[in-house]
């Protein structure tokens, strides 16, 4: 059904436009402003052209943070997506148990991000945490404060703990839309479990799965609070991801120019991925 064209609908979106312009466009313009200027303090600025962009694009520090970020996002996706599908396939389909599973699984998603960090910071400590204590008791030398590998492992397990349920819940919603008749047909054809998954469940889940992949990629790409609370970006710079590095630069060292240029590049990357996301979502909507 085609929607009627009516340009007066603009009046309805006007409040959103004004509000988001105030909270997004004005701040972004400040960033643009800083990114092309330099200062010696005293609020005196002079034109610096693309100098900061060059500096940021050539900076080893930013490259290293970007590398860590991409590695982190890749590991997160490689674990959470298959695990989420697996969990969704094992969830009860209806009734009280299904509701209970939904609610318990959503619990980590509702915890403030710094409390997620705190939970794992405490949980992993060798002296007072169950995880750290147990690992120490069975003779594993585990210390997320000093050992980069342990720090990474802790943050990855934390993120899996925090967000796998999101993937599982989205896949579960996709599975719920499959009519029972499909399964009955598969049973008559004596399809194997793998066949049912490959030819019935996976195609039906593909839409939500794309959303899940993109959402997880975006959110892991801008992760800040959780690793900041657990490791503060350390040991050294081992867990300094893009957002942590940016905040260090902008608010810690007050390097406005480079931080602004960094922000804009970061934002352009996000914009690009958002566009892919949007295209996928709207394409899906128009097909059925």
């Amino acid at each position, binding site marked *: 059904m085609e*929607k*009627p*064209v*009516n*340009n007066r*609908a603009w009046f309805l*979106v006007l*409040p*959103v436009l004004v*509000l*988001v312009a105030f*909270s*997004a466009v*004005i*701040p972004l313009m400040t*960033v643009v402003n800083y990114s092309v200027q330099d200062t010696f303090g005293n609020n005196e600025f002079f034109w610096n052209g693309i100098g900061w962009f060059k500096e940021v694009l050539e900076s080893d520090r930013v490259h290293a943070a970007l590398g860590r970020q991409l590695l982190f996002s890749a590991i997160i996706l490689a674990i959470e997506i298959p695990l989420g599908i*697996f*969990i969704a396939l*094992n*969830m*009860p389909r209806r*009734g009280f*148990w299904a509701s209970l*599973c*939904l609610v*318990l*699984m*959503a*619990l980590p*998603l*509702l915890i*403030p*991000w*710094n409390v997620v960090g*705190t*939970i794992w910071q*405490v*949980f992993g400590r060798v002296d*007072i945490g*169950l995880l750290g204590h147990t690992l120490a008791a069975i003779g594993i030398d585990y210390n997320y404060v000093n050992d980069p590998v342990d720090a990474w492992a802790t943050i990855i397990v934390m993120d899996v703990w925090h967000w796998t349920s999101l993937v599982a*819940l989205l896949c579960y*919603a996709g599975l719920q839309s499959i009519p029972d008749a499909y399964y009955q047909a598969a049973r008559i054809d004596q399809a194997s479990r793998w066949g049912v998954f490959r030819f019935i469940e996976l195609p039906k889940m593909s839409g939500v799965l794309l*959303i899940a992949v993109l*959402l997880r990629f975006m959110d892991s790409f*801008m992760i*800040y609070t959780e690793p900041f*609370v657990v490791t503060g970006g350390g040991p050294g710079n081992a867990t300094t991801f893009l957002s942590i590095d*940016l*905040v260090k630069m*902008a*608010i810690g060292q007050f390097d*406005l120019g480079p931080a602004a240029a960094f*922000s804009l590049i*970061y934002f352009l990357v*996000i*914009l690009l*991925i*958002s566009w892919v996301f*949007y295209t996928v*979502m709207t394409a899906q909507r128009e097909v059925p």
Partner: protein
Amino acid sequence: MAAARDGRGWGPAIVMTIYLLFLLVPIYWLVNMSFKTNAEITGAVSLWPMNPTLDNYRVILTDPSWYMGYVNSLTYVVMNTVISLAVALPAAYAFSRYRFLGDRHLFFWLLTNRMAPPAVFALPFFQLYSAVGLFDTHVAVALAHCLFNVPLAVWILEGFMSGVPREIDETAYVDGYSFPRFFVRIFMPLIASGIGVAAFFCFMFSWVELLLSRTLTSVNAKPIAATMTRTVSASGLDWGVLAAAGVLTIVPGALVIWFVRNYIAKGFGLGRV
């Protein structure tokens, strides 16, 4: 259990049990700690409190510098939810019912704000709100969180509204309803569950966010989450109180999650599931 009926055996039940244990044990550990004294926490690792105490909760509920954190957080979260819904409702209606000049671009632009890294906005927000004299007020945080909550609310509401047949609108107009009266009297009750879900997700995403709320506040509007981080770095010792504060931040979400359980996927999937 459903497993038996599906002919799937006990495998799924075992998988789910293991997964839920993985999710709940770290939370249990926090709850466990919140009922212990500091001496017991640092003394020996025990699976449950030997001498359960409510002292940690008493500290939080009697010390203004602690409990005001909750009041501040709740204040700006509620403000944000109200603002987000108020502006998102008409906009979502426009997107779901009409085509207009630049609608797709606008919809996409909203999405980019939901996806924008808060780290990019932390410093400009700080300067903007300082410049207009709103620094360290609840309004500043509420407005800042609109950055990602308004798009979210528009997307979720648009999803729900598109499920309502357009004939209803047309019939109402034929019956002589004006737009505002139709919207409030007829349309909003029809999408009541959608409004509830959108409100829940605005509330939640504002509640869990720390970076912006911490950057924009210092004393008067300091959120509970920021109060907690300060305590860790300053003393690093008061684990019991820290755990109790953490547990109290989980409570609001846990209380209402049952009511939105069937829409969780829709909310997290930006209304597109």
